[in-house]
């Protein structure tokens, strides 16, 4: 938290940020309580938007803002019954009245029509009740159909204002989703909250393990359409597609290097799965591993110089880290006999993965540092799969079969504020969490 203070600007250390930091510090030692209820978090109010006439987009925007604020893990959203006044203007609040209601922040807004057909003008402001001033006051103009994006962008501004980090809300998730044909899987992309889903690959066949390049143009994925699971790379702008692998062995796309030049993948040759790097410039495939065991699920470090992957060369699946230039992989997980699905944080040397506790054999989402220290079980419910990092490295999304069907959850990188995300089609398996790729 101290780091956030300094970055937030020396003079404005009081009030809201202080409140929030203290609350966080408290919740760190009250983990179980907070997991049961967010009541200890400070309250933020998102009253209805002021509007020129009734517009359903206004209500939608309010719901998006409330949802995003809840998922920040920094706030609970105050019930309307706690509001001490009815808003008259975006920039005028009776701060003392809100303060005595126990509310630390208020988002106010006004929705109006902008010139042009189906355009809207949206003003949104963040009020710091203790400081008795607006911390953010922004205008958004654009097509009405993009009102959710505008709300997400404001939520990101709030997150940045309070933490110094980019927000996780105007983002998208790449998923493998149950297709219409029996046994088929589609690859889809949608907003982080499940809205605006559109298919990227939906040919009625089995499509798996998608990985989108950093600039959002190249989609690598595995398809069974040739009769065997091979990797294809599709240019989403031109539709051009290239098959990278052939043969009967399993091939799975893993992760793109941060510069977008290399695709890390796994491919089984002669019955043995190994890690390869595909260079999109030279079109050459370079083999990185060479051992008898299963080697799968490569994930690039943000420095582009290392990657982590899963290998069962020790007799059980464990996470290893190796240099992309070669050299012996270093095993980093030693607790339990099942540690798979590593995802390297885009922010630092932290990895998320799915592990199984020795004591009760339950699977969970864990984090660990790339040097093997600092392992921590964040949670994850029954049968978690495929943890993915928000682009800001502050949140982890994963799926779990809690409640019977596979659903998505997101939580802070410390395991707090674990929330079920809105339903997003059948059986969505998260593969990647990316900045919004198209506006």
């Amino acid at each position, binding site marked *: 938290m101290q780091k956030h203070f300094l970055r937030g600007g020396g003079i404005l250390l009081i009030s809201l940020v202080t409140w929030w930091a203290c609350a966080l510090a408290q919740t760190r030692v009250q983990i179980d309580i907070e997991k049961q209820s967010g009541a200890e978090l400070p309250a933020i109010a998102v009253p209805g938007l002021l509007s020129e006439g009734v517009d359903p987009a206004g209500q939608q925007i309010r719901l998006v803002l409330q949802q995003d604020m809840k998922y920040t893990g920094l706030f609970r959203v105050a019930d309307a019954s706690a509001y001490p006044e009815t808003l008259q203007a975006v920039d005028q609040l009776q701060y003392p009245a809100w303060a005595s209601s126990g509310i630390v922040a208020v988002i106010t807004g006004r929705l109006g029509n902008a010139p042009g057909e189906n355009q809207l003008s949206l003003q949104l402001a963040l009020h710091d009740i203790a400081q008795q001033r607006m911390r953010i006051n922004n205008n958004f103009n654009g097509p009405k159909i993009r009102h959710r994006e505008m709300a997400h962008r404001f939520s990101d501004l709030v997150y940045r204002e309070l933490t110094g980090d980019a927000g996780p809300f105007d983002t998208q998730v790449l998923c493998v989703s149950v297709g219409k044909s029996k*046994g088929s899987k589609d690859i889809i992309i949608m907003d982080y909250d499940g809205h605006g889903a559109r298919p990227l690959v939906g040919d009625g066949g089995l499509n798996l393990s998608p990985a989108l390049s950093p600039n959002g143009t190249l989609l690598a994925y595995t398809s069974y359409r040739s009769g065997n699971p091979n990797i294809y790379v599709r240019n989403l702008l031109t539709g051009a597609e290239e*098959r990278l692998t052939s043969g009967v062995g399993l091939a799975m796309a893993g992760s793109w290097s941060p510069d977008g030049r290399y695709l890390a993948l796994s491919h089984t040759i002669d019955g043995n799965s190994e890690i390869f790097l595909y260079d999109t410039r030279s079109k050459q495939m370079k083999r990185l591993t060479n051992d008898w065991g*299963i080697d799968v699920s490569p994930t690039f470090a943000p420095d582009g110089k290392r990657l982590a992957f*899963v290998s069962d060369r020790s007799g059980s*699946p464990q996470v290893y880290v190796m240099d992309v230039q070669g050299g012996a992989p270093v095993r980093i997980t030693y607790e339990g006999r099942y540690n*798979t699905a590593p995802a390297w944080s885009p922010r630092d040397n932290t990895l998320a993965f799915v592990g199984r506790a020795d004591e009760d054999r339950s699977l969970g989402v864990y984090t660990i540092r790339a040097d093997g220290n600092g392992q921590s079980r964040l949670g994850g419910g029954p049968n978690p799969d495929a943890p993915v990092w928000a682009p800001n490295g502050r949140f982890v999304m994963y799926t779990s079969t809690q409640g019977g069907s596979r659903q998505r959850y997101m939580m802070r990188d410390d395991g707090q504020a674990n929330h079920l995300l809105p339903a997003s089609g059948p059986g969505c398996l998260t593969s990647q969490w990316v900045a919004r790729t198209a506006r």
Partner: protein
Amino acid sequence: MTRRPVQSSVALVALILTFLFVGCAKEEPPPPTADSAARSTPTPGGAGPGAGGPGAGGPLGGQAAADFQNQDIYFDFDKYDLRADARATLDRKVAFMNQNASVRAQVEGHCDERGTNAYNLALGERRANAAKQYMTTAGVTAARLTTISYGEERPIDPGHTEAAWAKNRRAHFVITGQ
């Protein structure tokens, strides 16, 4: 590694038939019971339609071919080594392939829903390869057996119980040519 796309490989003769499943697992965890009816694995996307496949009235339409395709072998959780019951089943499959020297088959490796998707695909491949390895060591020509992994994508029992998982950790055989 071949990078250039290879033109369409082996044409698969697809086969979707429903048979009575005959349980054969004898070890822990709880094996499927003998009376559990099970459906053969759906044809993978990309494979052609199954018109006139073996078992559909041809010379291999008999009980032996049905058994070959419907007696799966089972694996322990997170394992791909062959249990004694699996080896006994594979011995019968070897005998069948020896008696029907023109038969070619695909071994499908499957997993239960637990664990992570990517690793389960790799695990399913190892299961299929373990079965193939056993049969080729016993004399079946390697070229007559192909393998494919479906990981946890094609559960035979959609349930979330130990009994369902035990049925899903399997290698399944499909006759692809004769």
